[in-house]
């Protein structure tokens, strides 16, 4: 399929397990992220169903007390750190290098390390269920509840170290995204022409880099409190539980934007393609992401309105939180204007993307309620908050992620997802989601507290709770249809051409699935919609094309290229390094024997990684 000058390591053509364990190809790494997130989504989803089953009727005894707390904590932790973040990292890994005309990420082996660290960190966290009980202090692990005095078991230690491992994964992948997007863009692809999904991935990477160290420091302090007898969060010895809250939410609120910005990027790609129009207000959509990122670091204390900060502080954080509505609304209006007057094709990706806009607006509006201190005091720690953040993270992030999967599935696999099953999936997910979470607004307003495993009859909460539980099972059925659709399409799905949606961006110019080297010849970019221009040069167009199109040849399939393509060698050492860290963490929680074993694996992985040249033969250098 490609010219003889193309030289990539043989392992890329192999199909065996080893080729996956040693892969440094951003596309395979992206797939590993997405599959891993899918696996953890099953666990997190089952946890959600357990919670809803318990709450279906008053005084239920399905899941009570500590077990309920464990499931609740792991549901939140799983969905945030093991599902939404990694699936977005996975789509970013797969798509962004293709979108910007790069052959791989800037640091291919560090990229592999990131995905192994995620998979092993996720398994480590879930191992806690088998080894003495899962963490049970909620996903924000407030001190001093997490102190040794109140949480004696190892659950909290699994939580601390698991999040540290996942944090390492996020930091390394973010460094990679920043370098890749800043340095490896194709000629002519200026930042002002960068696809919006790449834009939001870039901003998100910076958010992770500046938010993650704060929780990392806090987790270290908590670990020291639990095991070395330090007093950071122990009020009896002068320590300060509020310090935990500040350090946690300095991470925790940007984290919300870490989960929503790439989702907004996906929607900004899908809506124009299916409306057959360019995105309305490209510059505003791109720069509003940057604005959200900046403001996102100045709003964390709105999670702490009820702890008694001075009124001036509350007023500042209240105002800053409301300010986020401005760049967010800019995006919403631009999306609506993009659809407006377009020749809309109502395919599944469009349905999910459009639903994202509607549902995210609801989540954003309830967020404005919560930004007002008096309202927040009224509904803090009630189901109103649960409704709010599920509208942003499920109605928002998850709907956009599903849109992205339907959109890029043909590129990743060379096959379409079934349209009829897709519509059924959409109907079930949309109805199920709203049935589950809309009633929670009313439950919260009438005072039902979150995180409590049961409620008494006669408070007027029975009907809405039962409705929410029914909705949750409809939602789950939607995901069953989704997984069936994926499995069916992988085996017998309709074959997809290279450019199934008449796309705008560069990834549609290579084959489906793309070759290991992505593009035989790196394309030169003249506008924001390089693929569209190549197909329709001469049409009336908002971004005039300077050069004539080079014909309809697929960029990935040129007979010969001028110079040989060198792809990095596969490497096992990133996996060994990640395994070393995980075993080391296991030693800290369980038996000390794992500590030296982990350190040995870590040292072995590191030394061999440094010694192995990045590229085969003597063409490249290593560090």
């Amino acid at each position: 399929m490609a010219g003889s000058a193309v030289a990539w390591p043989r392992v890329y053509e192999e199909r065996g397990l080893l080729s996956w364990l040693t892969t440094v190809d951003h596309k395979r790494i992206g797939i590993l992220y997405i599959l891993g997130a899918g696996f953890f989504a099953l666990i997190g989803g089952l946890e959600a169903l357990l919670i809803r089953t318990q709450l279906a009727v008053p005084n239920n005894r399905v899941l009570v007390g500590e077990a309920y707390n464990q499931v609740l904590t792991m549901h939140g932790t799983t969905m945030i750190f093991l599902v939404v973040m990694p699936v977005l990292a996975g789509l970013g890994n797969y798509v962004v290098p293709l979108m910007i005309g790069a052959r791989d990420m800037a640091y291919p082996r560090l990229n592999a390390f990131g995905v192994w660290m995620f998979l092993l960190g996720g398994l480590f966290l879930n191992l806690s269920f088998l080894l003495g009980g899962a963490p049970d202090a909620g996903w924000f692990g407030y001190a001093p509840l997490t102190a040794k005095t109140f949480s004696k078991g190892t659950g909290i230690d699994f939580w601390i170290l698991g999040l540290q491992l996942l944090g390492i994964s996020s930091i390394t992948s973010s460094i990679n995204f920043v370098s890749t997007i800043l340095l490896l863009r194709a000629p002519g692809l200026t930042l002002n022409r960068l696809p919006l999904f790449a834009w939001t991935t870039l901003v998100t990477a910076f958010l992770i880099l500046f938010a993650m160290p704060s929780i990392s420091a806090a987790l270290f302090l908590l670990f020291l409190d639990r095991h070395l007898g330090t007093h950071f969060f122990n009020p009896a010895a002068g320590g300060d539980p509020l310090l935990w809250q500040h350090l946690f939410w300095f991470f925790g609120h940007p984290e919300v934007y870490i989960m929503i910005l790439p989702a907004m990027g996906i929607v900004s790609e899908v809506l124009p393609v299916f409306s057959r129009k360019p995105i309305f207000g490209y510059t505003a959509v791109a720069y509003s992401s940057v604005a959200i990122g900046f403001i996102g670091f100045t709003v964390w204390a709105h999670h702490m309105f009820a702890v008694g900060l001075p009124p001036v502080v509350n007023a500042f954080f209240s105002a800053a939180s409301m300010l986020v509505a401005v760049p967010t609304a800019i995006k919403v209006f631009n999306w609506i204007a993009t659809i407006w007057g377009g020749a809309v094709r109502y395919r599944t990706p469009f349905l999910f993307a459009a639903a994202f806009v509607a549902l995210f607006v609801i989540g954003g509006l309830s967020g404005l309620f919560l930004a007002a201190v008096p309202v927040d005091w009224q509904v803090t720690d009630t189901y109103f908050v649960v409704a709010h953040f599920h509208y942003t993270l499920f109605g928002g992030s998850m709907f956009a992620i599903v849109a992205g999967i339907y959109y890029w599935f043909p590129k990743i696999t060379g096959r379409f997802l079934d349209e009829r099953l897709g519509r059924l999936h959409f109907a079930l997910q949309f109805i199920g989601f709203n049935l589950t979470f809309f009633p929670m607004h009313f439950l919260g307003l009438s005072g039902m507290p979150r995180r409590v495993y049961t409620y008494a009859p006669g408070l007027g909460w029975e009907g809405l709770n039962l409705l929410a539980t029914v909705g949750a099972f409809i939602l789950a059925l939607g995901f069953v249809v989704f997984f069936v659709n994926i499995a069916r399409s992988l085996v017998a799905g309709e074959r997809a051409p290279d450019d199934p949606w008449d796309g705008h961006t560069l990834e549609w110019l290579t084959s489906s699935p793309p070759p290991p080297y992505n593009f035989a010849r790196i394309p030169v970019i003249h506008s924001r919609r390089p693929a569209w221009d190549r197909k329709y040069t001469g049409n009336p167009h908002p971004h005039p094309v300077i050069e004539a199109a080079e014909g309809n040849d697929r960029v990935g399939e040129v007979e010969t290229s001028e110079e040989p393509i060198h792809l990095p060698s596969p490497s096992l050492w990133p996996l060994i390094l990640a395994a070393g860290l995980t075993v080391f963490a296991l030693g800290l929680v369980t038996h000390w024997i794992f500590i030296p074993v982990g350190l040995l694996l870590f040292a072995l992985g590191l030394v061999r990684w440094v010694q192995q040249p990045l590229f085969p033969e003597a063409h490249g250098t290593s560090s």
Partner: protein
Amino acid sequence: MASHHPTVGSEIAVDSRKLGVWVFLASEVIFFASLIVSYLVLHNRVTSGPTAHEALTLTIPTINTMILLTSSVAMVLALAHLRDGNRRASIAWLLTTAWLGICFLILKAVEYSQHLHEGLTPSVNVFGSAYYTVTGFHAAHVAVGVIWILSVALGLRRRLSPQNDVLVETVGLYWHFVDLVWVAIFMVVYLLR
């Protein structure tokens, strides 16, 4: 870290390894800022046991400050000599830098043992907790830096050429950063005690 050089399309002409280290260090700033802020919030809330004013002396930390600042000069010279094509001198200055780092760690250990002798432990009070955590994480960064510098010096001796000055430059960036963190710690922990 891998080596990819920017393609022609990028407006930003910088080696990707260098950018990667810069970005990583930016992230580290927040990590140390979190620790230092925690120290500032807590160190005056001692309920029993030694306070910062009672426990800390200036002699060793002042010497240590001079050692680290000198080591940064040595690191600059290592890079300058490598760029001039003088590989042997570069290696010598790298080893000097690493040695100064080791001296810092030895003096830090001496200081810790004095503290422990006087009853200041991480668990004695909230000042002890914060003090050992901030300085301990910094010392760990110094130790990582020493290992990194020695491995670069070893690599330079074996097979790497002056064209690979980015390897020295990246470890240098890290080393200067660790120095800078120490200067901040010196001011916040020792001078403001």
